[in-house]
Each structure stands twice: as structure tokens, then as C-alpha cells.
């Protein structure tokens, strides 16, 4: 076990968020920050998200929750109560960053908006994630990861032409907001060193997913506009026509052959069969126009090889070919093993398992999962007694009053 500190070890982050901000604060925890997840006494709704470890619904066994909250400490707190509000203010005084995702006017209603909190701690950086924004015509609308992803512009490009557009796995819309919140917090931390005070950051899922997941859609459309001409057609689902998928001996591959040179390389990968050497096939547009004929021709050749054989031959010849790996394939891949990407984490209730580690290796300040996701209220005593000076009797009373 390394003893080196993480890149963000000196910092404390208060995480009042649920699923919309969980990934933002997970990234802080991976880099060594002390992230304290502050949950209502009944728990983050993310604890009820399936699937569950052992397939048993249990508030300590949601795999979505366990993954996105690994590395954090956890306390319970109802800061709608006067005592709870005071406790939160005590935590804010000792924090660098606060991340929350309540509806636009909720924190102000409790006297816990940035204007109030900066009085307590002028160095505090606070990021608020909302569905649609803190103001504007959609401010009070309801949303969800699906609805935000639908409006992001990526969904209309996902799936088969004509069929129902497909949702990207995970919670991409929420995670777009989390990533932008994280970036702007780090930028504000950088500036804080120079100016000595914090900043308030306002991020919405609607805007970050729309502008951040696939930013090329807007210029693609704008560049196609000819003044005086008809409106350009906008992007839609192209299915397998751009990046064709072919079966092989042990699975599927996805091929990215755009240029004539890449096509030539693909033909060599497949043993240079004569039928694929017809000059017309070298044209990308011809291949798109005759995709089903091509598919029928290709099958005979791709099925002679395994995914990895084609992947490696593509590299050798100069055409990107990707194996379509399932979850188990990726987990078992020699490359994944060589990078030691999965790390063992033991959770007191859910048990021991390998978790995806942070997606990067650092030479000086290691990124790591330092602890499992917190059990509900696991660190109440550690935080409230050791840091805020409450006695155990106080905690009993606070628990009795439903404050923690």
C-alpha cells in the first residue's frame, strides 16, 4: 500500500448531491480529497437503484451507489431542521467545496444559498447542479437521465434508423453535469490560490449534456447552412452504415474504414479476397450506398477470424478494427489485467469485489479507491464527535429528534 498522498488530499468536499452529482465527488475522492457525503436520514435515493449485490434490494447494496460513492465518508443529516442546519453550517466552515443538486430555490429557502454560506466561509467553492438551470422557462421542469439524454442530441444518433433511439448505458447526462461541475470547481480552486476567496458555480444537466456530450452537432448543422438555401438536414441515426459491425469467429467487430487506404488495409486483413478488390468498394460513399450487399460479402471472410486476430491484423495493416467486448471480455482482457485496472474493495455489508479503478495512473500522487462507499451514517460519530465536538449523548439526542 502506497503512502503517497493524492493530488487533492488536503481538501474537504461536502457532497449533498444524489445521482446527478455523485460522479463529480467520486472523482474528488479518487484523487485523495476527503469527501463527506451528507445524506438525509432516510438515505440517498441512489441507494435504491438496481442492480444490487446478491440481487437483494438493500440500501447498502445498490451497485450504482457503491460504484459512484466509493472513497467517500458518509454522515446523515436533515438540514431542514434548525439543529441540522446549524450542523451543516459547522461542516461548511471546515470545507473547501460543497456540491449539491437540489431544485433551484431550495437552498435559498433554507438560508443555505451561497450568499449565506460564504459569510461562514469566504473560501468556500459551491457548485449547484440543477436539471434545467437556476432560472429560465424550463427552470421548474421535471427531468431524468433518460429525458436529459433525449434532449442532448446524442440519442437521435443512437440505435437503428427507424427504430426507437437507444439510451446510452450508465447515466451519461448526469455524468456530463458532474464532469463540468468538477472542472469548474478545480478552476475556481486554482483561482482561489490567487484571490483568496471562493466562487459559486451554476451547472445544469440540460445544458452540459447538450453542449458537452457531443458538441459537434451544433457546428455540423451550422456549417451546412447556405444562406437563402433550404435548411440542411440534421444528424440522425446511421446505424451500422458508418462504422459497420461484422460477426467473426467468437463475437463481433466494429470497423472504421473511411479512407481508400484504410479499405485496402481491411481487404489485406481479410486475406485479399478477389470479390473485395473491385475498385468501387474503395469509395466510402459507395460502401454506404451498398451496405447490405457488402455485409453479405464480408461475412464469409470476417467469420474466419477471432475478434483479437482481426484487432491485431487491423493494427498491422493500418485499419482501425475494434472487438466488441462484453463486460466479461473487457474484465478478462490481458490489457486490462496488465494495467491492474480493477481493484479489490471490501464493503462491510455488500462484501468484497473488484471495482473499476480510477481511469488513470499517476506517477507522483496516486489515484485510488481508498475506502468503500459509506454505509448510511457510518461516519456520524467520527465527524460529529471528533470534529464538531458533539458528545455521544448529543448524537443519541440528535438521532432521536430525526436530525441525523
Amino acid at each position, binding site marked *: 500500500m502506497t503512502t503517497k498522498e493524492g493530488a487533492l488530499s488536503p481538501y474537504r468536499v461536502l457532497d449533498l448531491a444524489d445521482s446527478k452529482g455523485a460522479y463529480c465527488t467520486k472523482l474528488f475522492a479518487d484523487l485523495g480529497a476527503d469527501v463527506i457525503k451528507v445524506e438525509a436520514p432516510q438515505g440517498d435515493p441512489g441507494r435504491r*437503484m438496481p*442492480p444490487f*449485490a446478491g440481487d437483494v434490494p438493500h440500501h447498502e447494496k445498490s451497485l450504482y451507489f457503491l*460504484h459512484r460513492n466509493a472513497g467517500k465518508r458518509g454522515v446523515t443529516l436533515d438540514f431542514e431542521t434548525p439543529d441540522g442546519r446549524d450542523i451543516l453550517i459547522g461542516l461548511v466552515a471546515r470545507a473547501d467545496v460543497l456540491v449539491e443538486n437540489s431544485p433551484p430555490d431550495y437552498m435559498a429557502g433554507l438560508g443555505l444559498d451561497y450568499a449565506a454560506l460564504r459569510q461562514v466561509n469566504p473560501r468556500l467553492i459551491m457548485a449547484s447542479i440543477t436539471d434545467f*438551470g437556476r432560472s429560465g422557462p*424550463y427552470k421548474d*421542469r*421535471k427531468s*431524468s437521465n*433518460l429525458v436529459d439524454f*433525449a434532449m442532448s*442530441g446524442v*440519442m*437521435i444518433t*443512437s*440505435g437503428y434508423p*427507424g427504430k*426507437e*433511439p437507444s*439510451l*446510452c*448505458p*450508465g447515466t451519461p447526462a448526469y455524468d*456530463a453535469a458532474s464532469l463540468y461541475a468538477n472542472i469548474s470547481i478545480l*478552476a475556481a480552486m*486554482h483561482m482561489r490560490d490567487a*484571490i483568496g476567496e471562493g*466562487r459559486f458555480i451554476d*451547472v445544469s444537466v*440540460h445544458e*452540459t449534456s*447538450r453542449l*458537452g456530450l457531443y*458538441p459537434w*452537432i*451544433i*457546428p455540423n*448543422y*451550422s*456549417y*451546412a447552412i447556405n444562406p437563402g438555401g433550404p435548411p440542411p438536414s440534421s*444528424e440522425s441515426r446511421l446505424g451500422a452504415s458508418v*462504422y459497420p459491425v461484422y460477426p467473426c469467429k467468437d463475437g463481433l467487430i466494429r470497423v*472504421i474504414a473511411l479512407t481508400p487506404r484504410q479499405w485496402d488495409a481491411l481487404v489485406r486483413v481479410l486475406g485479399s479476397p478477389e470479390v473485395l478488390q473491385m475498385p468501387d468498394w474503395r469509395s*466510402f460513399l459507395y460502401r454506404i450506398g451498398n451496405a447490405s450487399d457488402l455485409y453479405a460479402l464480408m461475412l464469409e471472410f470476417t467469420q474466419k477470424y477471432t475478434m483479437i486476430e482481426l484487432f491485431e491484423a487491423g*493494427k498491422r495493416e493500418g485499419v482501425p478494427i475494434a472487438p*466488441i*467486448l462484453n*463486460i466479461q471480455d*473487457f474484465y478478462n482482457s*490481458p490489457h486490462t489485467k496488465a*494495467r491492474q*485496472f480493477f481493484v479489490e474493495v471490501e464493503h462491510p455489508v455488500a*462484501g468484497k*469485489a473488484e471495482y*473499476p479503478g480510477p481511469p*488513470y*495512473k499517476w*506517477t*507522483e500522487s496516486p489515484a485510488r479507491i481508498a475506502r468503500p462507499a459509506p454505509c448510511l451514517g457510518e461516519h456520524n460519530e467520527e465527524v460529529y464527535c471528533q470534529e464538531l465536538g458533539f458528545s455521544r449523548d448529543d448524537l443519541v439526542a440528535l438521532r432521536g429528534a430525526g436530525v441525523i
Partner: protein
Amino acid sequence: MLPLEDVKVLSFGTGGVVPDAGKILGELGADVIKIESKDNLDFMRTIGPDMNNIAQFNEANRNKRSFGVNLKTEKGKELVSRLVKWTDILLENFRGGVMKSLGFDYGNVRKLNPQIVYVSSQGFGGGGPFSDFQAYGPMLSAASGMLSIWAQPDDPYPVGSNSPLPDHMASKHAIIAALAALDYRHRTGKGQYIDMAQTEVAVSLIGEHYLDYTYNNRIAKPTGNRSTYAAPHGCYPCKGADEWCAIAVFNDVEWRSFSSVMGDPAWTRDPKFASLQGRLKNVEELDQHVRQWTSGLDAYVVMEVLQAAGVAAGVVQRAPDTLADPQLKWLGSTVELDHPVSGKRLYPGVPFRMSGAPPAQSTAAPLLGQHTEEICRDLLNMAEDEIQRLVKEDILHTPASSKEGGTSILG
């Protein structure tokens, strides 16, 4: 003051990931210099007939200066070495091994600048059998397990999206790594090397499916748009060609609102739909009823009437919808920039707001070598005649001297 005004970034970027990261660092005030070579173009400059007039390139490379240089010459390498000494953050996503062959791998660069923060972002990451494989976004969704479940259950095989996702998620992780490492350096004086794998970013974003394997030994299969805790939950066809509205009904209160918006048709009173459990169990039949209702209506009408009743609903939007979106208009989410070749075009704005900071800046993407002369003069203290000699010798590239470079890969 913009938050990153004092930060200097050198970008050896191609395609999506590093260019997008540099774009955002630039929006936040960093001075970002893109190293470009006319004989080895960023491949995004090659996907159309004019390398300076490509929508995707010009989006991803905003807020940067372009330094055009032949990296295969000793003189070119020397000039870039001098820029390396100026740099706080170096970002690169060339194919694994390329930076080493150019002499700018971390081992060499740290000799020039021991405090540099060096972020490498290869598709598969370094240190394994696939580390020098070429990788584009659509390959990474395939090779990370993401594509295997980005599909409807009845699709013959998964096709995911024509977007390069997870590229634009990986780019954000690269920024986070760079800024956190900069903070560490500020405290300790130590630079470092960060090796980010784009496939691992994709896996991190779907971590729950990996835990389903490591805890439950289950290999996730595509579930399309269905949810295990909401129904209806999906995209429903509306009036017109390929028009859809996404609807998500999580609880019984929302279900009753949803039913009343539809006019409480008889089928909604069937007890089998009364509870979430029942709706999940009978989801095929439920979806058929919902599709019947939506298919006669405009997608925007469906969204408006459901939102008015407190039900989460949103049109599956295209680019023109974004431009017309009242909320994004309110927020000022797009920005028009005048590019010397492409003219006035629209780009995504900056999707966050910071108190006390001026609106983030956005400048049009550079022509190849647009800032070569200015960087030579201002940062490298070179004399005018030396600059012009190196341009003539094709060691430095300016827009005028790069005209011959760049051919379309589709040509």
C-alpha cells in the same frame, strides 16, 4: 479575471479528446498552443476538402493558438523544446509510442521541464499489450463493454451511436487530471505523468454493470430504454417522421398525472397498471398503449402537456431543436464566432457559470500555423529574418506556407 489566466498549455492533440480538453481549458482562460505539422495533420483536418473549413475541427480547436512546425527536423524539435520549457500542462493523445519517436515522451520532456504536468490519453492507456493501438471513439465504446449494452434487446447486434462517445467524456477527465496535478504541483513543486485510458473512462461511466459482473457474475445484456424502477420509460413515436418524445414515470403520483393527461382512458384503470410493480410486469402492453396515444401527437405537444402535469418528458432533439430551445436561448448556450475561412458559424457555448468571473471567452479555431510567427516573436524571442528563413525552409508553417498541405481522406 478568468480562472486559468496564468496557465500555459501545450497540446499535441488529434481527433476529439485532447482538442476538446484544450478548448475548455482555453475557455477558462488558459493560453493553449496547439502543435501542428503540415505533413502529419490532426486527422480531423483531413475529413473534408479544406483543412481550415471543417466543422468538427473548428469546434474542437477553438480557444487555441496554432504553432505550425515540422517535428521531423532538428530545428523544429529545438523550437518545440523551448515551448516545452514555457509549459505548465502538456496534453497528448497521439498513438502510443509516437511522442517517444518524436523525442517528446515524458522521460525526455521532464529533463527540459521537471515540473511539467504531462497528461497522455491513449485509447487503451499505456503499459499493456494494446497500448500502441490506434483508437477512435467508436472503437472505444466497442472495446470497453459500453457498446455491448448500448442497444435495444431485439437489435440483431449493437450499433450504439454515430457520435464518438466516450471521446467527449474522456476529454473532461483529462482536464480534471491536469488541473488536480497542477494543484499538487503548486503545493509540492512536483510535476508528474498521468496515463489515462479512454476505455477505462467508458468503464468508469458504466461501473455498476461491472460490479454486476464482479458481485453477481452477471454479464449485462442490452435493455434498451427500459428501466427497472420506472414505467413508462422510453422514447415514444410521435406525429411525423422519426419524431420521438422520451417519457419517464417513476411513481404512482406521476402515473395518475400521466393518465389524466391522456384523458384517463379505460385501459389506465386496469388494476394491473395501478402500481409500479404492475406497470413493470406488463410493460409491453403498457408501452403499446402509450405509443398509441403519442403517435397522433406532435412530440412537443406531448412534452408540454406532460411537463405541465409534472411528468418528466423531453423531445428527442436534433440540432435545430437546440437552436430553438427556449431554455438554452435563455441561458445563451450557443455562441457565434467569425472564422477567417468558415465565416460566422454557431458553436456550443460554455455550459457553466461562475460568480465573479467574466463570461468565459471563446475564439475561433486557428488556421494551420496562424500563430507561428507571433509565438516565435513573443515567446521564443526570435528575430524576424530567422522566422522567415525557417518558414522558407518549411521548418515552420504559416497559413500561407501550408496551403499545399492537407488532403481529404475521402478524396
